[in-house]
């Protein structure tokens, strides 16, 4: 049985008086490609932020690679691409190469410095994502798609075992979006990288993800796509017609 890299058990998150994530439990096994879907305000981003301790849970436990969150230190195993950076500054004086290099800090010890191997790792990921030509460009000069790929490169450069991406394709045109998702799929299939992808696109996610997690403050469904189409809970939630439309599109 594959090892669980993420285990979420009875987790609730509360903002002031409102419970935005309620009693959610699920596991992500190594090599999974999990699509996290749900309507606006369903708690997807909150759940992802809670996974990494960016928001405290009011209840429940989270484990990464079998270790409780507060005991986990192997952060270089995880690559994270946020939905939008809380304080993104387009005038930040950093080049694409400098931004990507930040992804390597998790595996370095004090005093941290970059060496030749880091340069090779950065060059490799820039080439993989086809942004080698803009490595010396300032981030403020990039298009939405280029910026997203630069941030993905930062998440990938340390060759993490898990990639968690929160709505990474919202700023991309359809062509760039397809290319981006193809890269993710390739990483998942050939390198065995576990992918957790938060998206609104319930119609399209089944083409990529091996599992689906539907969230609407509480967990509506977690499992494979065939099970999603056969699930009575999903029928109750969406109605038979909507469930048929979603499943038929795949």
């Amino acid at each position, binding site marked *: 049985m594959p090892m669980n890299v993420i285990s979420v058990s009875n987790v609730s998150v509360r903002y002031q008086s409102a419970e935005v994530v309620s009693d959610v439990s699920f596991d992500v096994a190594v090599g999974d490609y999990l699509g996290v879907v749900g309507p606006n305000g369903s708690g997807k981003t909150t759940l992802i932020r809670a996974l990494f301790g960016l928001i405290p849970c009011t209840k429940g436990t989270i484990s990464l690679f079998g270790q409780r969150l507060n005991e986990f230190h192997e952060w270089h195993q995880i690559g994270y691409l946020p939905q939008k950076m809380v304080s*993104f500054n387009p005038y930040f004086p950093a080049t694409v190469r400098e931004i990507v290099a930040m992804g390597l800090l998790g595996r370095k010890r004090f005093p941290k410095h970059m060496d030749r191997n880091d340069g090779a790792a950065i060059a490799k990921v820039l080439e993989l994502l086809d942004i080698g030509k803009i490595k010396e460009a300032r981030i403020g000069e990039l298009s939405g798609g280029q910026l997203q790929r630069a941030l993905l490169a930062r998440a990938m450069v340390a060759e993490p075992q898990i990639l968690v991406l929160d709505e990474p394709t919202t700023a991309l045109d359809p062509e760039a979006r397809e290319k981006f998702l193809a890269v993710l799929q390739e990483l998942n299939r050939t390198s065995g990288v576990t992918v957790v992808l938060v998206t609104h696109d319930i119609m399209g996610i089944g083409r990529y993800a091996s599992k689906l997690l539907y969230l609407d403050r509480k967990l509506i469904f977690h499992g494979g796509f065939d099970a999603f189409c056969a699930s009575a809970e999903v029928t109750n939630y969406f109605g038979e017609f909507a469930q048929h439309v979603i499943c038929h599109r795949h």
Partner: protein
Amino acid sequence: MHLFDVFHYQFIQRALLAGCFIGVLCSTLGVFLVLRRLSLIGDGLAHVTFGSIAVGLLLRVEPLYAAIPLVMLSSLGILRLVDKAKIYGDTAIGIVSSLGVATGIILVSVSGGFNVDLFSYLFGSILSISRAEVVTSVVLSLLVILLLALFYHDLVAIAFDEDCAKIAGIQTRRLNAILILLTALTVVLAMKVVGIMLVSALLILPASAALQVAGGFKRSLLMAAAFAVFSVVSGIWVSFLANVPTGGTIILVNFLIFLAALGWGAKSVVTRQAFQEGQAGRAAM
């Protein structure tokens, strides 16, 4: 007297030495503060410095040595307020800074009113800097620059994206505390150069000018340091020749550099955009 003879005076040499070190310190730290939208923390801590100087004068302790621990403690107070009282950083800075000024006013009043010493701290008096103050300034500046160098990569990552820095395992809380403590120390040191009233300008202006024109992060730090050193040297020189206050002159030179950088930055953006559009056009053909 030849125009450059001023540099032969020992008190000018002392002022240049301390001023350049503190200028480098302020400008490099300023880049981090400006990017983290913490520019006004310098202003807030300068107000606290006013209160701390008054404490020093009242207790007959060397004001610099009284100010260093008090301002550092206050800077930690700002962090704690943001953490515990769930208020924004600018509100916490406002609260602590007004407490500093209020304490200063009361202590000045209790001690019998303003005196010449307090004015020298308010408006700076780098030309009267003593040998001991030069040594303290240089040593502490080197210490702060060393710490900035040691934590450089982590500080840049936090300035760019604090959440991702946390997930990369960077101790963001500890580094925020270090950054704010270094700022407190820097504000106290810079007080002698430009005075309490203008300390934040020395943190903000060279950094803002460099951010207009520099490409990468390291280049921004180097340019900010170069602008600060140029402003200190030319400010001391011009103020001595024109017999005007040195602190104010240094800041005015910084402002002129900022204006020039603003113009140069706008021109560079237009050139870069034209170049990129040209490249995109050629690629499309």
